[in-house]
């Protein structure tokens, strides 16, 4: 049953990504040119609700569907990995115009070429795994 839950969450996410045009290369390009509020509105409104909701969860020690108290782990403190890794990701995000969620949505929508981006992203992840210990974190 739980697996169906994840499947429906994924379907819902895929529909939202496609219908909001957050999966469109053109919207990403437009965002980085500051010529539309659309993408900022999406991220901003998700964040306002996200910040409020997570504060409510934490302050009231809410439980998840299995009855476990929800614990959201803090990210490890550091600078290099987030800044350098972030810049590399941003270069790819703007060039291919897709981030790791919409990649799947676009493949489902029938854009066969996006499979190339997906396979290259798997390869990029693999290369990171090989070089990890040599990179600043």
């Amino acid at each position, binding site marked *: 049953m739980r697996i169906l839950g994840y499947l429906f969450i994924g379907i819902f996410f895929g529909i939202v990504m496609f219908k909001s045009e957050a999966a469109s*290369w*053109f919207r990403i390009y437009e965002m980085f*040119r500051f010529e539309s509020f659309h993408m900022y509105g999406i991220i901003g409104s998700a964040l306002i609700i996200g910040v409020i909701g997570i504060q409510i969860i934490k302050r009231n020690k809410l439980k*998840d569907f299995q009855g476990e108290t929800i614990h959201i782990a803090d990210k490890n403190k550091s600078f290099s990995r987030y800044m350098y890794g972030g810049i590399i990701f941003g270069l790819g995000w703007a060039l291919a115009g897709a981030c790791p*969620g919409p990649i799947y949505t676009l493949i489902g929508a029938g854009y066969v070429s996006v499979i190339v981006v997906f396979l290259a992203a798997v390869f990029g*992840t693999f290369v990171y*795994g090989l070089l990890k210990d040599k990179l600043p974190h």
Partner: protein
Amino acid sequence: MENILQPWPWYVAGPLIAVVMFLLIFMGRQFGMSSNLRTICTMCGADKTSGFFDFDWKAQRWNLVVILGAVLGGFIAMNFLTADPAVAINPETVSHLNELGFESAGKAYLPDELYSLEALTDFKALSILIIGGILIGFGARWAGGCTSGHAISGLSNLQLPSLIAVIGFFVGGLLMIHLLFPLIF
């Protein structure tokens, strides 16, 4: 129904993305898409090459089901919930893209110049897809997350590391669009 077939405005889409994040939190999980790429590496046997891939990938099966759903969601949205996939971006953006050689700007969901089947036989277009994908995979794992893990989940939890990562995303994106695009296209 007519409204559903049109592009969804930001004030609908943003809150719905927050709903996705909260559903996963209440399932006892976290919203983060790029970690699936690492899981896929391990499934393909990468755990023999680096300790980074030596983990119990089966514990991540739930997230693979989420991305399978995202594929189905894309299919459903494109085929049953969309009247016209063309993205109505700012006319100024369209004219900039026309100058760079993107004739499909304003007329398609993805640029034909990069993502049509014919473009797969174009060396430059194919290189762009491959280099873009490698940067996405490499950068997301180095930064420990992508747009979903940092810009949505991390910032919602007021994480300073996620703010640094998101600033990095924008530094990289702005460099690409404003400095490198005029050289590439």
